[in-house]
């Protein structure tokens, strides 16, 4: 800033501190709740400081043997979430990579038609076309399977579009230099394009991983067998009991567990993720 005013600076830190508190407050409460017994939570006085049942609650959640759970352990649900998130993110990236490559670097008939078909899918979030998509998946006998969980969400106009944007920034002369150097389309993809888009791909991976992990409605619909429950929808299942019977001391640890992997991925790959998110979406 132009003038280095002490009070202005102090105010900024104050506001930011409040912001951080606002953002973190729910987590603190969730954490506190995970360290008390069910009775301790409903008995009227709401605790503000952690209790001593942290380990017990978490081990109960992870093993799944308790009254509040949905019949499977959080371990299995975490695993299912991981399969779904990885399936969606990797699948999306591989498919979009090829699609964007074809769209940008090859001239073929109906090229723009293909592009528009893919582009249209951008306009349709799962939630909007949920009923018919469900019927298609049901007709294909994919309910209660990992394929059914991931495949319908894999085609991603977003990723294709972002990669296309990036590919279009690659100078045509680089492509020509590679041609003169004797690199064919496949060699060009693997020797030049992939190494160049490493950061973009990593950022895309983070975004898509979170997208996949956080899916809610879709797994809710296509899974009736609890062995395919993902953790995010599992929480909803835990809440879907009579209001007084909700075992908050079990739900809250599960919630924390459900947040941990995606939050971890974001924080670990923060730099790449922020760069990818802000630079590619704008």
């Amino acid at each position, binding site marked *: 800033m132009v003038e280095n005013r002490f009070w202005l600076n102090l105010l900024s830190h104050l506001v930011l501190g409040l912001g951080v508190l606002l953002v973190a407050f729910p987590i603190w409460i969730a954490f506190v709740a995970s360290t008390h017994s069910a009775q301790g939570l409903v008995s009227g006085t709401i605790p503000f400081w952690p209790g001593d049942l942290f380990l017990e609650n978490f081990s109960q959640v992870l093993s799944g043997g308790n009254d509040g759970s949905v019949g499977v352990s959080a371990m299995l649900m975490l695993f299912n979430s991981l399969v779904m998130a990885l399936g969606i993110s990797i699948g999306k990236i591989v498919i979009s990579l090829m699609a964007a490559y074809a769209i940008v670097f090859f001239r073929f008939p109906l090229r723009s038609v*293909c592009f528009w078909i893919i582009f*249209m899918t951008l*306009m349709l979030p799962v*939630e909007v076309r949920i009923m018919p998509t469900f019927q298609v998946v049901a007709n294909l006998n994919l309910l209660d399977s990992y394929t059914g969980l991931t495949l319908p969400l894999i085609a991603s106009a977003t990723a294709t579009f972002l990669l296309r944007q990036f590919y279009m920034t690659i100078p045509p002369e680089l492509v020509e230099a590679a041609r003169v150097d004797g690199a064919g389309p496949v060699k060009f993809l693997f020797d030049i394009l992939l190494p160049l888009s490493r950061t973009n791909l990593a950022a895309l991976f983070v975004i898509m991983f979170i997208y996949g992990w956080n899916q809610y409605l879709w797994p809710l619909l296509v899974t009736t067998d609890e062995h395919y429950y993902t953790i*995010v929808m599992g929480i909803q299942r835990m809440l879907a009991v009579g209001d*007084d019977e909700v075992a908050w001391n079990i739900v809250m640890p599960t919630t924390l567990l459900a947040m941990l992997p995606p*939050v971890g991925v974001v924080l670990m790959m923060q730099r790449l993720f922020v760069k990818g998110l802000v630079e590619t979406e*704008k």
Partner: protein
Amino acid sequence: MAPQLLVTLVFFIWPAGQAVWQSFLVEDAFGLSTEFVWFENYAQIFTDSRYYHTLWTTIIFSAGVTLMSMGVSLLLAVMADQVVRGAQVYKTLLIWPYAVAPAVAGVLWLFMFHPTVGVLAYMLDTIGIEWNHFLDGDQALLLVIIAAAWKQISYNFLFFLAGLQAIPQSLHEAAAIDGAGPGRRFFTITFPLLSPTTFFLLVVNVVYAFFDTFGIIHAVTKGGPGDSTRTLVYNVFDDGFVGLDLGGSAAQSVVLMVLVGLMTVVQFRFVERKVQY
């Protein structure tokens, strides 16, 4: 190329086509008979006062979420852009809710506002406000708005901060030399230059509030109490999967698709324009 097209065709185009087709049909609850009824389903939607109520709820909800989360984010971003030290730390501490699933965000806030066990509900009680979103529709709507806005703060913050940092320092300095104080500089220099980012976020947030918040509403209020938190997307789901009114649900899907289409066009017209300069 081919795989993308295949997946797109099977899971996107086919369902979309089916939605359009089904929106012209009436089916009884057991799927035993089907009748082609042209635009009857659409006529029904647009004469149904409940649908208009849902639309209105959606608009209030979206406006609330957008204003609340963008306001907070802008404030935080401006502050983070000001501080000399620690901006990176604040960034780290503020971005992680991006990764929280909407449904999970909903559950967190549900717990805090829970009439019997919630911390915040308890606090409100001590200052004389009776909080029970299971009974009070307005409170329920406010709750889902807060939860949805909370989750979106990090996204908006990141974009606002990037937008702020893209404004050349020399402009601030020039304005300062021209005699503008910090507040004046913000409204005459920063805010106008930030308008592309603001517009972009406006569209993104409205789309988010319209469609991506299904998880919050479903997990927290299930559209209730009454219809007070029933949004358009929730209505599609509820009419289709709970009410088993396939034709009506499909017709609503088609209406929504058109709506998303319009918003996407607006958004990408904007993106394309940005790309050019």
